[in-house]
């Protein structure tokens, strides 16, 4: 099964489970959770069922295309469901079977791993799912966003597509994966890994990135004054990625780090409050 077939199968599978298959969000981000379908989707009491592939950038994980297991830019397949459907862990197991991983033939383990995102003030309870010792999915019941308890709770599944593909195709290097369309993953990604690693570790303009961080933070604050959380949230996503790049570039000391994270978290909280306020029926809010 090629890389793209795995994505298509997962889309099919979750489409049949009633999910809307949405598209990746058009901003640089470190995780699928940043897609508004998940971030805003988890916030209010309205039902949410989405699935999508999301390119993720982790500047610090770049290895110049030389490490067969590590990438500075890769893909996640993300599912978010609220309220949580009955038997979701069983449904997940069925999704593995759909992409050719029969749980009966493997050792499937649920290892405690509580996810949290300090920048989003978000945390959840859940597991890493191990297939024969390899982590293939992060499985999380969101509990908090912006340091506020969530109700109803959403469940988030994040598939590590490259690892699953390496397993299925029996490849020891991510770059040897058969992507589909006659291409390897390396054909598509190796030049990018090399150049983006150089950017993250060597050539990124620290002064410019720092300035942009400050500016997007200020813009986010300014925009949230107008009562529109969506453009303000874009500022959160941008600031977060700028922070990640600055950190990879070695431009942030340990003490500054906490300060940067605090700034993003404060902005994210403002955006969340705004969004909840805007999307909660007023009479319900008043009757509480």
């Amino acid at each position: 099964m090629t890389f793209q077939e795995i994505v298509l199968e997962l889309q099919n599978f979750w489409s049949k489970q009633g999910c809307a298959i949405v598209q990746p969000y058009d901003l640089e981000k470190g995780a699928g959770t940043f897609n508004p379908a998940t971030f805003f989707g988890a916030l209010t009491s309205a039902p949410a069922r989405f699935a999508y592939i999301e390119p993720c950038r982790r500047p610090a994980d770049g290895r110049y295309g030389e490490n067969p297991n590590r990438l500075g830019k890769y893909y996640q397949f993300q599912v978010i469901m609220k309220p949580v459907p009955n038997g979701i862990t069983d449904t997940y197991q069925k999704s593995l079977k759909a992409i050719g991983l029969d749980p009966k033939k493997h050792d499937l383990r649920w290892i405690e791993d509580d996810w949290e995102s300090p920048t989003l003030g978000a945390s959840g309870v859940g597991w890493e799912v191990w297939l024969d010792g390899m982590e293939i999915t992060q499985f999380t019941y969101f509990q908090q966003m912006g340091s506020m308890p969530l109700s109803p709770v959403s469940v988030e599944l994040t598939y590590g597509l490259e690892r699953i593909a390496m397993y299925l195709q029996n490849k020891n290097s991510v770059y040897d994966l058969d992507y589909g369309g006659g291409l390897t993953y390396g054909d598509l990604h190796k030049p990018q890994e090399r150049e983006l690693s150089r950017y993250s570790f060597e050539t990124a303009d620290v002064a410019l990135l720092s300035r942009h961080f400050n500016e997007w933070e200020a813009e986010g604050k300014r925009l949230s004054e107008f009562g529109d959380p969506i453009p303000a949230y874009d500022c959160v996503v941008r600031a977060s990625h700028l922070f990640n790049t600055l950190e990879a570039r070695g431009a942030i000391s340990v003490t500054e780090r906490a300060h940067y994270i605090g700034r993003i978290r404060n902005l994210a909280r403002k955006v969340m409050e705004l969004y909840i306020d805007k999307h909660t029926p007023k009479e319900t809010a008043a009757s509480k």
Partner: protein
Amino acid sequence: MAKNTKLNDFLLDIHTEPFPARFVPPALDQLKLNAAKMLDGKIEHGEIAVSGTLRHLVLSVKQVAFKGGDKTERFKGPKVGAPAPALEGFARKYGIEASALIPVDGILYAEVHSKGEPASVLFAAMIPELMKSLQFPKFMTWEETGFKFGRPLRAITALLGDKIIPVTVAGVKSGRAVHGHPVLAKAPAVLKDPSKHAAALRQGLVIVDPAERRDYLLKSLAQATKSTGGVAEPDEALIDETVFMVEHPVPVLGKLRDAHMILPAELLKLVMKKQLKFFPVVTRDGLLHPYFVGVRDGLSSGNELVRAGYQRVLEARFNDAAFFVGRDSASTLESKLSQLERVTYQKALGSMSQKAARVSAIAAWISERLRQTAPVDEQAVSRAAKLVYADLVTDVVKEFPELQGHMGGVYARKDGESEKVALAVEQFYYPVAAKSPAPATAEGAVVSLAGKLDSLAGCFAAGMIPTGSADPYALRRQALGAIRIVLEKQLPLDLDEAIARAISLQPVANPEPAKLAAQLADFIWGRAQSLFEEMNYAVDEVRSIRSGALTNLPNAFLRLAALRAVRRDPAFDALAAAFKRASNILKQAKLSDGLIPDRALLRDQADFDLYDALVSAEGAANDRIVRGDFEGGLKTLVSVKPSLDQFFDKVMVMVEDEGLKKQRLALLSKLVRAFRLVADLAEIQAAA
């Protein structure tokens, strides 16, 4: 309850999504304890037992009575003669007539008789309460009712005899379905009665009893490793965890590649155990064998695929580790030292580089102190002290903090440092646990002790002093480590002086360093005290050697042993009492301890006898004590007892004649001083 009808057993199976292993044993303990509390006094029952896995918390109660006991309760009401509406209101609350209220001492009581409820009703009420009563390290919510539990609830099996106890918790209705292994069980079993529960789960490939699962795991581990000639490392923590990580353990043996066997064994083991929960295979001597065992949850069919997967994951992890070792080895430990300037130790205590400088200074001071009595290789000490923290900035230690020290040793050898230096670096953090070994060499002991003294002095100087059970910097462990090193290596080192030295080096100014040093000395002594008490020395014995103990701890221990030996003498308690009398007299007279009697100024025969006995005993005792024979010394001192008894019988100490009084006090003072070289007998409590 001898009746013809058979009593029913009760069974509750709380089936959830997978709990973290560490959640389960405490939850099972609570399940048993809380169920007993809730049932006791309400209904008669037999044995309560629990079992479970990461997905099942199971409670069984044997031989439950058909209904709860009848009860009569009295509730206090208004005073006799209260207005009628008040009386009626009170009576109505309990469903009785006002005329039925019972007067006792001017107060009216409502007496309520209740029939015992049927067992099924009691259990239906108990189950939700019982589930709510379980405490988990972390709670979560997952559905609309907001029920809080350790993991999402999937099913509740609740049967009393062959009847379902109907309850609904977190939207889940109880029933008689029993859910086996989530991947391997075919369909849920339908449970007819509680006695079939374990068998139903076994049918679904779940061994529900933890003890049985553990046995099965150990047996199959032995089986799996048999062909290798080695054994699965008997790591108790990993075994306990594995018992609650799988429902049906199936070991899968895999092989390590030769290329990886050149990596440090401790690193390989840690990668296996910590990152993948695999058991390393070791020889009978504990050496790493090129095998591992992963424990699969479920069947042994298709193990080839699982083995290949395990090996691939392990190899990827080993490659990461090899990459880290390679990067770390590209430069020497010494060249990494400058990076320690940027690593903060404690805000108030500066960087790790500053800490390293202090440790070097303390280690040098200790070596110098030992130069006459127990010389060490001072060059090796100095070199090791310089390098001990260098591995903190290596990639391997950043990834595996447990390997601090160990990797330092590995890299030191690679750098061509002497074995003495490498070993001292490797064992710098020893002893790592209460029963684990202290550093093997004298040089290692000195450097390790210096590190501990600096940490203790630093934290005390910065006000980070443990209180109660709170000890965030593990200072008690450090203090115990220091004590054990000095004792086990027999270091004739004055710890009081060393403490003062370490405090003087701290970057935090203290207005009263002597007071702080005394406080730290007491803290360290506290650890020595509990160590000795653990060795079965009595509290009063340990207390009696406190004075001067830290000046020479190995001697203090010998003094303690001597005291214990001499105490077996039947005359000892009487001597201790006389001794106590002597020290009380001195205390009341408020005279300084250092008085020296002058035989010429004494008067009575009893004075002279005690004086002579004391002088000769003291001389002989000192000869022995100097040779380290504290027992012999103490026994010699004990020989003054008849003279002391006679002294107390025949003469008064507090006489009118000031000169004579002073001489007699001086005599007692001499006695007390002589004994204190071994122990302060005033602390000894007479046997009850």
